[in-house]
């Protein structure tokens, strides 16, 4: 496990996550409401993909399926060849801990833990010793520019700083993929820019695969590619030119 920056850009050629004929519907008041229908696409290693769409288009549901916090009604989702839709709950939790870093719209930090303790939290599920955990957490906080806020509680940090702590928590275990659900949805423009810049850096310099859900086109433009989701169906992937 390493969270040290990797040199060079992602190759972009090999598939990391493969979704095949994935569908998901919810039951509401006796009615079955399809949210995503027969979706098939690949996410490449080191890709920064923005999933866009209006409210209710199913983009968050799709993200939850990719992240293994929800299970599809049909189809398969494989990562590195393993079909995560077949994993039982306990194994899925272990898989998430090892492979997925989460960034939420409302940060979802533990309010009673400091920034450092929040970042350290996922590492308590690993076999790392206390000292190693602390070192990695400090390094992750340094990467998001919060070395001077490690002892602060979430309530003592701005929204942008809290989201950066959440990013540090997401990357501290060096997961295979980062999933971000509207990561700038609760932030002012400057903070949003800071957060997106960090995510871009994680993708470009460290080769992190990122899947981001957003309805904000300006945020989506920080990604390498964009896919539109409308009424549960995906449009063509658009590759964005970046310097």
């Amino acid at each position: 496990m390493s969270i040290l920056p990797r040199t060079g850009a992602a190759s972009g050629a090999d598939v990391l996550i493969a979704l095949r004929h994935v569908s998901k519907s919810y039951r509401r008041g006796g009615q079955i409401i399809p949210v995503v229908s027969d979706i098939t696409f690949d996410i490449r290693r080191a890709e920064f993909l923005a999933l866009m769409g209006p409210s209710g288009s199913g983009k968050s549901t799709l993200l939850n399926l990719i992240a293994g916090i929800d299970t599809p009604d049909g189809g398969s989702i494989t990562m590195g060849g393993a079909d995560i839709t077949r994993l039982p709950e306990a194994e899925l939790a272990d898989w998430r801990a090892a492979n997925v870093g989460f960034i939420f719209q409302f940060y979802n930090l533990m309010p009673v833990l400091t920034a450092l303790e929040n970042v350290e939290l996922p590492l308590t599920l690993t076999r790392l010793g206390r000292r190693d955990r602390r070192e990695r957490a400090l390094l992750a906080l340094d990467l998001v520019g919060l070395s001077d806020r490690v002892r602060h509680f979430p309530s003592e940090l701005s929204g942008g700083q809290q989201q950066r702590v959440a990013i540090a928590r997401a990357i501290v275990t060096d997961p295979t993929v980062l999933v971000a659900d509207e990561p700038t949805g609760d932030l002012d423009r400057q903070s949003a820019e800071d957060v997106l810049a960090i995510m871009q850096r994680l993708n470009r310099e460290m080769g992190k695969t990122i899947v981001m859900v957003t309805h904000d086109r300006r945020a989506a433009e920080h990604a390498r590619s964009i896919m539109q989701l409308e009424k549960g169906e995906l449009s063509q992937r658009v590759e964005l030119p970046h310097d």
Partner: protein
Amino acid sequence: MMQFFKLVARNSLRNRLRSALTVAGIVAAILAFGLLQTIVEAWFAGVDGAVASRLITRNSISFSSPLPRAYEKRIREVDGVRDVTFVTWFGGIYKDAKNFFPQYAVDSASYFRMYPENVVPEDVLREFQHDRRGAIIGRKLANRFGLKPGDVVQLEGTIYPGPWEFVVKGIFDGRDPKIDTTQLFFRWDYLNETLRMRSKAQAEQVGVFVVDVADVNRVAEVSEAIDHTFRNSFAETRTETERAFQIGFMKQTESILISIRVVSFVVIFIILSVMANTMAMTARERLAEYATLKVLGFGPGYVASLILAESVVLALVGAAVAIWLTPLVAAQIAVLTKALFPTLVVSKDTVALQAVAALTVGVLSAVFPMWRASRVNIIEGLRAVG
């Protein structure tokens, strides 16, 4: 593990007012529970203090009916009897009826020999045996009325009417804190001689005989032998162990004791409901956090343990304060109720019961929130607003 305890400790202090009120409720409930248990125990102090080898021989009609003093010699002759003494309940009023305390006319030669739990200094006992009007009083009684050796205590007799004067010869202490030291003992021969002059019909009689049996294994046999000795006499006897005698005495107040016990458990049930509600509210507010923990890879067991530990911590903090307060409050109750509860001592059993009650409250209060939080659907949980 450190992170777990950190989360538990900080979560416990998160809503300080709520936690403080919950702990205060637990303190009140566990304190009330402990005090009620202590009162019940005080009621049974005589039963607990009963000695296995001691028998009580009373009139078979009732313990308020006297027996002839002359029975003593015949009881001594029963095989297996090591020693005999006798006691008569006096029931006098000291200045005012509200100043109640137990008074007994006893045999100065044998009584304290048979009740070594009442510790009397030898010189005091000698003086008591040399002065017919002498009396020995317990430490608590002396403290209550400021009595000291040489003071004269005047009682107004109710069973044995008229004024009665006794000279305090000394003070006895209990061998342990549970021994009742609110009593006054005076000489039966003084009572008897006075009755010969005032009320001849009441003379030469005693309340009960206390019999010391040489072999504890023979108490049933000796009891039977004593009662057999007086069968078909004008005052038949009923002999039973001191413990059975005390329990029989307690039976009269059994319904009160049952009520006290029921109330003590109702108090625990009330705090259980209050605490369960607090923990349910707490868990509901934190559903998003529990969902986040699950997203990060923590299992349902970890989430459930967080709730259980917090609930148990609050309950045990409350219990610790309550256990510390119980003897202090019990001492105040003993002062306020004076002779009603002569030995209001908080026992180890009561402390253990308080701790177990608190632990039970802590665990049971967490059951539903644990179940709910551990089963929370991650998607639903993440949408929950605290």
